[in-house]
């Protein structure tokens, strides 16, 4: 069966510090991968998605970036965090073809920028 991992689970970082959040998927190959942010008001905002190694699409301009160095690894980064980057970050994956259209989410990372 497939599983998706995210770490760290929680993170408190000062403004201006760098960020690296990691997401890995097990039990599948060549997945589509997604990064979302959920603010305190509950809505989900799609940040990035990737359909393959090195292929990243950005949905909104921001000081965040994403990379996919391996097939099942997706990293969210920032060089300098802003207060507005605080939130709950969720990684998700979906399979290719075969009628699988739903996304499966990881446990999330709670980021607080102080």
């Amino acid at each position, binding site marked *: 069966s497939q599983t998706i991992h995210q770490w760290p689970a929680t993170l408190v970082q000062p403004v201006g510090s760098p960020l690296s959040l990691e997401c890995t998927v097990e039990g599948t190959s060549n997945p589509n991968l997604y990064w979302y942010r959920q603010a305190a008001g509950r809505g989900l905002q799609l940040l990035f998605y990737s359909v393959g190694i090195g292929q990243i*699409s950005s949905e909104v301009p921001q000081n965040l970036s994403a990379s996919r160095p391996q097939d099942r690894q997706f990293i969210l980064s920032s060089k300098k965090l802003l207060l507005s980057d605080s939130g709950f970050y969720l990684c998700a994956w979906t399979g290719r073809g075969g009628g699988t259209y739903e*996304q499966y989410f990881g446990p999330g990372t709670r980021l607080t920028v102080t």
Partner: protein
Amino acid sequence: AQSVAQPEDQVNVAEGNPLTVKCTYSVSGNPYLFWYVQYPNRGLQFLLKYITGDNLVKGSYGFEAEFNKSQTSFHLKKPSALVSDSALYFCAVRDSSGYSTLTFGKGTMLLVSP
């Protein structure tokens, strides 16, 4: 562009009573629709999907959803609510971009009282 509306911020229901969480959508082409549930500080869990076929879709934990093309709705239902059903529920529609990205509603908090 596609969109999803969840008109209720919160739904309150007594345990044992039927529940309905409303969702309407707008999308060009055939709609692919999804429901997710989120418990506090957790990732989203997939409940059910409508791709094609029967308008009544059955999913996890006794939930079902009714697809209504003429009303562009996809309401989530359960015949008998449990206190443990209390959570945040999201409706989503698959984007037509071909990369399986999803557009989510803002979420509806379901509170089931004992």
